[in-house]
């Protein structure tokens, strides 16, 4: 099953390589990984998407917790949560296709954030599955570039990942 693991980790140099190294050394699958500072400059928050059986996910969370720099983590898949990913897509456009792309972007609540005579850049956020759906909906031959942030997430309500 797919799991989204959120990690609060000391904002030390090398912290990212400890996490990445753990996954490669132990042969765990890693689909995406995002990192950025939090409101507390001494902490970074990582969101990691992985897949595995329950046993493997249990080992992954135990091994992550064992890293000295990891302060706290949660598996978002364990409870109600919101997942968001940012995507920007550069699409080749012609007079004929512009209208269609604009309306498709609107349906997916995307924004057109750059326009040239031959291209659009569409910005979109949402759960990864929605972004996948948008990509599937547009003509693949017109896509010039796709950049995705990888999912991040937060749990709903009082529950969450904080100190």
């Amino acid at each position, binding site marked *: 099953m797919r799991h989204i693991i959120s990690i609060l980790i000391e904002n030390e140099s090398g912290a990212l390589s400890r996490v990445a190294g753990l996954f490669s050394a132990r042969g765990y699958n890693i689909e995406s990984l995002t990192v950025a500072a939090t409101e507390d400059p001494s902490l970074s928050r990582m969101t990691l998407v992985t897949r595995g059986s329950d046993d493997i996910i249990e*080992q992954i969370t135990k091994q992550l917790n064992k890293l000295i720099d990891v302060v706290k983590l949660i598996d978002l898949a364990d409870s109600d949560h919101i997942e968001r990913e940012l995507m920007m897509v550069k699409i080749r456009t012609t007079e004929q296709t512009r209208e269609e792309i604009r309306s498709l972007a609107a349906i997916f609540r995307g924004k057109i954030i750059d326009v040239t005579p031959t291209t659009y850049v569409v910005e979109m956020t949402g759960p990864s599955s929605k972004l996948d759906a948008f990509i599937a909906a547009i003509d693949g031959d017109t896509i010039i570039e796709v950049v995705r942030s990888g999912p991040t997430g937060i749990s709903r309500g009082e529950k969450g990942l904080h100190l």
Partner: protein
Amino acid sequence: MELNGAQIVIQSLKDEGVEYIFGYPGGAVLHLYDAIFQQDDVKHILVRHEQGATHAADGYARATGKPGVVLVTSGPGATNAVTGIATAYMDSIPMVIISGQVPSPVIGSDAFQEVDMVGITRPCVKHNFLVKDVTKLAETIKKAFYVATTGRPGPVVVDVPKDITDPRIKVPYKYPKKVSMRSYNPAVTGHKGQIKKAVDLLLTAKQPIIYAGGGVILGEASKELTEFAHTLGFPITNTLMGLGAYPATDKQFVGMLGMHGTYEANMAMHDSDVIIAIGARFDDRVTGKLDEFCPNAQIIHIDVDPASISKTVKVAIPIVGEVKPVLEQMMELIRESKKKPSKKALESWWKQIDQWRAVNCMEYDRNSRLIKPQYVIEQLYEVTKGEAYVTSDVGQHQMWAAQYYPFDKPRHWINSGGLGTMGFGLPAAIGVKLAFPDSEVACVTSDGSIQMCIQELSTALQYNAPVKIINLNNSYLGMVRQWQEFTYESRYSHSYMDTIPDFVKLAEAYGHVGMRIDKPEDVRPALEEAFAMKDRTVFLDILTDRTENVYPMIESGKAHNDMTLRVADGTSTDRELA
């Protein structure tokens, strides 16, 4: 007090109570060596190879329970230390390794003798630090000791760039008494509910067994374990790393389990209904074929590291905590409980175990004209009255030492189990001898392993660490030869060494005593003579039966109840007992 970085390192070690640093100098640590020169509280042991430094510090740590300390220079000094760091990591041994690094401004520029020590060691340390600020140096060293020695112990590297130890830069020094880290809070006591469940299960067990490992030794819980086992009256087995955690001469002890464990220990594991694993990590040398591991057993597992629990074998009752407090918690419940273990069930269980014991799986040919390695270990046991510290290298000799020297006390059996590092034995013995100069220290080794760190014979002389080297010389990489005999139809590919040095002359060249023994009747007198030379390192080169194999054996991919035993007449043909 204002000190420069080099002085801070040495003063911190002093304040930490460090007795010995095992090290080797070089450019990046010259400031540190200058600071060492100007004091004599912390003694420095100059080894002959950085691998030797790590194993010596490791041996010191295993024997004393105190962290071992290593100092190496950047680049090749650091990489030479890696094998020893990984060795300590695999067996959860507390060590602090200080490595020199090129000056901060040139890090990343492929400077002379630069390696990314933090990167190289990341997968084989409990944690590592790169020091970036001299004002944080003392605190970092304190953290290193704290992390190395608490929870599941392990090696911690502190990488110190040369500019940080610059003698011209002085900063206020204060060694913190305590550190706390918000990201690191190892468990100590166990969860009460889990402990209650575990005790209930134990008291209803009919065919129970205690499977105790290195965690009991690391957690200083031998006394508690012994009391626990005696109170319950259950059979107990130890892993290779756990030997000595429970007195091997006690009647409840059924020997080591696993690949080269006893018939009775493995059969009892296989047929048990309840297993309590205490500070043991279900290593593959122990479990054999996982699908057939203890098919009827419900398992309780006490371990300070949650990641050790249900890693390979799923357990019914996990208890995260340190062995000692958890066993105390359990004992309290057992004492209070009205329920007692079923006497009748235990009696018939012991009857079964005694039948397995009667197979006498450790028997070997005692009438051979050749020196049997098992005989040498038995004699070593007698001559040292079972009280020596025994270090070993890796191979057949390691298994024989484990099988034929019953350890009654913890921290006396010192070997590399998890990484299986040849070359460990001699430097480890030196570390032990420095810690306990009045105790006998024997290093059981063989012709292959001893040559991997033989240069440390020189260190033993310089620092007056007289150890006894018991070289079970079979001219083979015996353990490899045995596997080739069993699985490759005796195609002995590169396991025979055509040229072996004259170890007697070699020992003498290093300033020690060398003895060669080639007849069984000479073994005992030679050992007595060697141990009578209290202040000399003696190298006993004992020419043993080259074809001898280690039995019993669970061949790879087989289950506990599928052991290969030696046949009763002592010849080396195998018999399947299933």
